[in-house]
């Protein structure tokens, strides 16, 4: 039973991560920085509760806020570039964050011994949950309430004017700016909101696992973050959730049946999904690109699929 609670907790945290990537992917930007914001949230929230004795609510809030502010700060220069360069810029940012935490040593003395990030050894002793006697089920409820909350906010956003403008920017930047949409504002706001969500997810993560270290926050995590919305289908929030369940369930449950080979098959599975359903699991009707690509390959712009005369 505990195992399943743990699995559901992980799925919840990863769903938040996927939702944060969903925001920025909506404006057409591919960002591998979510892992970095996740890390910032994780360390910040951990430091606030374990080292400064704050309670969980404010810590999570501040963690999300700081992650969001940093996202906005680096969003301005980073979002001036597009495509591959943005991928690299965000990758570089995420690596910088990881390396900074790898080198960060800052401990305070508590009655239980020194607590704080200890460079490569990580940051242990984030014991807010056990210290306050939260049960696994209560943690699970918290996580999923947050997931539901974030999803509702994003759903409302998507249906609002902001969502339409975000999508317009994602569809065709030239047309969007000619229609009067401020590209930078749209992209940076999506980035900032995504950063806040990732920071929140990170804060929960660090409390759930009680010990974090730089190796938790590699580029691979960021890749997972964007994998969820892409595989789930960008139009649908629910798709992201399903993708997380599918992927994490496979990875963790699959350990039982496939043993060591699960990671290999995992990569192959992603490949297969992309080949069969390039627009994601929860989107347009089934169409096998293997048979369609020659006939239907649209002529013209790769990003928008628009027709060029």
């Amino acid at each position, binding site marked *: 039973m505990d195992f399943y609670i743990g699995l559901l907790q992980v799925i919840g945290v990863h769903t938040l991560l996927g939702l944060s990537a969903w925001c920025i992917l909506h404006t057409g930007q591919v960002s591998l920085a979510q892992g970095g914001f996740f890390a910032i949230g994780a360390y910040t929230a951990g430091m606030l509760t374990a080292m400064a004795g704050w309670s969980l609510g404010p810590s999570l809030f501040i963690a999300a806020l700081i992650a969001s502010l940093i996202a906005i700060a680096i969003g301005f220069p980073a979002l001036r570039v597009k495509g591959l360069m943005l991928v690299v810029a965000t990758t570089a940012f995420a690596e910088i964050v990881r390396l900074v935490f790898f080198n960060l040593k800052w401990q305070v003395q508590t009655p239980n011994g020194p607590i704080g990030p200890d460079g490569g050894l990580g940051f242990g002793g984030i014991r807010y949950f056990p210290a306050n006697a939260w049960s696994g089920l209560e943690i699970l409820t918290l996580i999923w309430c947050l997931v539901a909350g974030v999803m509702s906010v994003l759903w409302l956003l998507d249906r609002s004017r902001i969502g339409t403008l*975000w999508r*317009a920017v994602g*569809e065709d930047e030239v047309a969007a700016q000619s229609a009067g949409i401020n590209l930078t504002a749209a992209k940076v706001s999506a980035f900032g909101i995504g950063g806040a969500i990732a920071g929140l997810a990170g804060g929960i993560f660090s409390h759930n696992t009680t010990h974090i270290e730089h190796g938790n926050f590699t580029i691979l995590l960021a890749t997972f973050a964007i994998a969820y919305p892409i595989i789930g289908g960008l139009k649908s929030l629910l798709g992201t959730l399903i993708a997380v369940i599918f992927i994490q369930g496979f990875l963790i449950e699959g350990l039982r049946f496939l043993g060591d080979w699960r990671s290999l098959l995992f990569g192959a599975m992603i490949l297969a999904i992309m080949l069969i359903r390039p627009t994601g699991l929860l989107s347009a009707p089934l169409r096998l690109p293997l048979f369609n690509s020659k006939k239907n390959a649209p002529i013209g712009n790769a990003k928008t699929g628009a027709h060029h005369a």
Partner: protein
Amino acid sequence: MLKVENLARYFGGIKAVDGIDFDIRRGEILGLIGPNGSGKSTTVNLIAGLYAPTTGRVIFEGQDIQKLLPHERANLGIARTFQNIRLFGQLSVWQNLWAARVVRETGWSGLKQRWFSTATQGKLETEAYLEFCGLEHKRDQLAANLAFGEQRRLELARAAISGAPLLLLDEPAAGMNSEEIDDLDQRIRKLRDQGKTILLIEHHMELVMGVCDRVVVLNFGRKIAEGKPEEVQQDAQVQAAYLGSDSDDAFMQAALQA
């Protein structure tokens, strides 16, 4: 309303636009014509802000708009359509119009907005423009799935709904049959009756001569003629540019002296 002064744009060695001057008067429909490669689309891109000029200025309502980004120019009052249609393909017809409309009263792309007050006004206008382009029955269809003519109409409506007083139409009739061109003629007149000023770039001579008040002719990035449609039609240099002339020398002379 809009003045172009000594505008030039070079791409490496290519002088796409080589020092042109003209102005667009309020309420008029000005045609911009010229053979292929004469710099018409580049001029539109320069006015819209997608390219920065190598030299020269663009002055809109008395203000030099050099430093303004494309979206700022759109908000200031210059809207445009594209030669190769650029719609928001995965958005519905309604959403395409709504996006362009909604931007008018929101700052920062939606984050600063009056949440309740003007939504209904915007929706009414969107409905009106849906009717304008005749697509009410297709309002929820994805823009990418529309027929070519419908896409053109939608793009025109999207430019119009922005409320901009100046519309730059970049070859809106390209690929249309004569019925559709008549339809386009009617729409352009309707827009002018609503008080808009229009710069029309076109190849279809009947459309240009029929609907434009004045015409500017470009060739090799330079202005070679300007005036009423009938005057321009008679101009020897214009004829030489389009049709060639008796001797090649005369043709080159005409182009170089423009």
